[in-house]
C-alpha cells in the first residue's frame, strides 16, 4: 500500500503520509499558491509542482528531496505567433494568440525514456521534455492537426489537455484527451496521431454532430495498467469504456446515481473495476440530494454500487475535479478531495471511507506516490 499522497490545492501543496497510527497531513509547500498539478515521478523520485500565479503566470518547480528544497524549472512556451482556433465562441472570429494559462496534465514517459515528461496545457498544447523539465518542446505534429481548429473549451474558456496515458508496455503509444477535442492516440512516439473517440456520444450538441469524435468533452481518461487496451472515460454526458485500445467505445449507462462527473479511477489489476464521483450535470454540478457518494463497478459497467460508508449523506455540495480521485497500486487504497476542501481515504477499495480533513482549500489534484 502506498504511504505518501500529494494534494494540490488552491492554496498550496500538501503531503499526506501514512504511519503506523494512520494517515496525517505533513508538509505544506507553496503557501497560498494555486497548484494546478503535482507529480511524483516513480522512476527517479523527483516531485513536480505546477503553479498558477494569479499575477505572474504559470511556473513549474521540482524537488529531488521530497519537497525540502524546490527549484524552478522551465515551462512550456508556445512558438511566437502561435494561435488557437477562433472557436465557436470567439467574439470577432479571429484566432487568439496562444499563451500558457495552465499546466493541466503532467505524466512521466515510459521506463525506456528516463528523463521524458509529457505535459498537457490550456490552451490545448501537448509538450514533452527529455531533460526532466529543464526544457520543453511543443509536439508540433499534434499542434498542427487541422482538427485542432475545431476544439473548444469546456469548463475553461479555451480547450485543454487534461489526460495523458502512456502505454505501460510500449512507451511509443500515448493516448491524450482534450476538453473538448476527443481522444487522440499516437503509436509512434508522437510522430502521428489518430482521433480515437468513435462511439463516444455528446447529447448536448445537434443530433447530427453527437458522434463527432473530434468535439467530445471527455472529462478524464484512464488506462488499465494490467490490460492496456482497456480505457475508461468520464465524459460530460456519461461514462464510456473501450476494450480494444480505443478503436471503439461503448457507453456505460448503469453508473448510479448519475453518469455525470469529472473523475474516474481504474483498478491497477482488474480492468473491469472502476470508480466515479457522480453529480448533477451541467450548470448545477453538486451531489444528488446533498449526498456525497462514490460509484464503483466491478463488472465492466454491467452493474454499479453506490458507496456511502463514511461519506457525508446530507448537506454535502462537494464536487470532485477530474484529477482529484486516485487509487494506489494495490487497488485497495483510494483518495479523493473536493472543491469544498474535504479529503477522504479508503483502504478497502471504497467500501468505507475516513475523513482526513474538512478544512483544506479547494482541491484540484490528489496523487499517490507510486513506486
Amino acid at each position, binding site marked *: 500500500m502506498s504511504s505518501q499522497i500529494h494534494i494540490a490545492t488552491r492554496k498550496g501543496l500538501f503531503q499526506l503520509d501514512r504511519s503506523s497510527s494512520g494517515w496525517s497531513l505533513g508538509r505544506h509547500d507553496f503557501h497560498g499558491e494555486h497548484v494546478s498539478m503535482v507529480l511524483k515521478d516513480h522512476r527517479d523520485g523527483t516531485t513536480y509542482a505546477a503553479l498558477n500565479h494569479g499575477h505572474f503566470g504559470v511556473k513549474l518547480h521540482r524537488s529531488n528531496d521530497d519537497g525540502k528544497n524546490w527549484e524552478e524549472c522551465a515551462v512550456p512556451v508556445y512558438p511566437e505567433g502561435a494561435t488557437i482556433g477562433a472557436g465557436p465562441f470567439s467574439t470577432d472570429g479571429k484566432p487568439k*494568440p496562444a499563451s500558457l494559462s495552465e499546466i493541466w496534465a503532467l505524466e512521466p514517459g515510459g521506463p525506456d525514456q528516463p528523463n521524458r515528461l509529457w505535459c498537457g496545457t490550456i490552451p490545448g498544447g501537448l509538450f514533452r521534455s527529455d531533460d526532466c523539465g529543464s526544457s520543453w518542446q511543443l509536439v508540433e505534429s499534434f499542434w498542427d492537426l487541422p482538427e485542432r481548429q475545431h476544439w473548444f473549451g469546456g469548463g475553461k474558456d479555451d480547450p485543454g489537455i487534461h489526460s495523458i496515458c502512456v502505454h505501460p508496455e510500449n512507451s511509443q503509444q500515448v493516448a491524450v484527451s482534450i476538453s473538448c477535442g476527443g481522444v487522440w492516440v499516437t503509436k509512434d512516439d508522437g510522430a502521428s496521431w489518430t482521433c480515437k473517440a468513435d462511439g463516444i456520444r455528446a447529447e448536448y450538441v445537434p443530433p447530427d454532430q453527437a458522434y463527432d469524435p473530434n468535439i467530445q468533452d471527455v472529462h478524464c481518461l484512464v488506462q488499465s495498467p494490467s490490460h492496456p487496451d482497456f480505457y475508461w472515460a468520464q465524459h460530460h454526458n456519461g461514462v464510456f469504456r473501450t476494450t480494444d485500445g480505443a478503436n471503439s467505445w461503448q457507453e456505460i449507462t448503469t453508473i448510479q446515481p448519475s453518469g455525470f462527473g469529472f473523475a474516474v479511477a481504474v483498478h491497477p489489476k482488474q480492468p473491469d473495476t472502476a470508480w466515479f464521483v457522480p453529480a448533477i450535470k451541467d450548470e448545477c454540478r453538486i451531489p444528488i440530494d446533498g449526498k456525497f457518494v462514490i460509484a464503483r463497478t466491478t463488472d465492466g459497467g454491467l452493474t454499479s454500487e453506490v458507496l456511502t460508508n463514511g461519506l457525508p449523506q446530507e448537506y454535502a455540495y462537494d464536487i470532485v475535479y477530474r484529477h482529484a480521485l486516485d487509487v494506489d497500486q494495490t487497488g485497495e487504497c483510494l483518495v479523493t478531495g473536493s472543491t469544498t476542501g474535504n479529503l477522504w481515504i479508503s483502504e478497502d477499495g471504497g467500501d468505507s471511507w475516513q475523513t482526513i480533513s474538512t478544512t483544506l482549500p479547494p482541491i484540484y489534484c490528489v496523487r499517490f506516490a507510486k513506486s
Partner: protein
Amino acid sequence: MVRVVFTPNLERHLSCPEATVSGDSVREALDAVFETDQQLRGYILDDQSRLRQHMVIFVDGKTIVDRVHLSDSISPNSEIYVMQALSGG
C-alpha cells in the same frame, strides 16, 4: 538613466532589485533588465512577450498604453514601476 522598480510581491518568488538602465521605450528598458535575468522576464511578460494580464506598468506616474508591444516612450530620467494590477482572491 531610467530607474526600474518592481513590486515587492515578486520577492516571494525571485530576487528583483531595482535597476538602472537605458532605453527609449518601456520595451527597451525592460529588455535591458531581462538581459541579465531571463527568469524575471517570465514573471512580467507572457510567452508572447506581452505584459501579463494582471500586471500593470507605470511610467512617471501614468499607466502605459501599449500592453502588447510596450512601445510607450520614456525619457532618460523616467521612473518605471512594474506593479500588480488590482485583482486576486
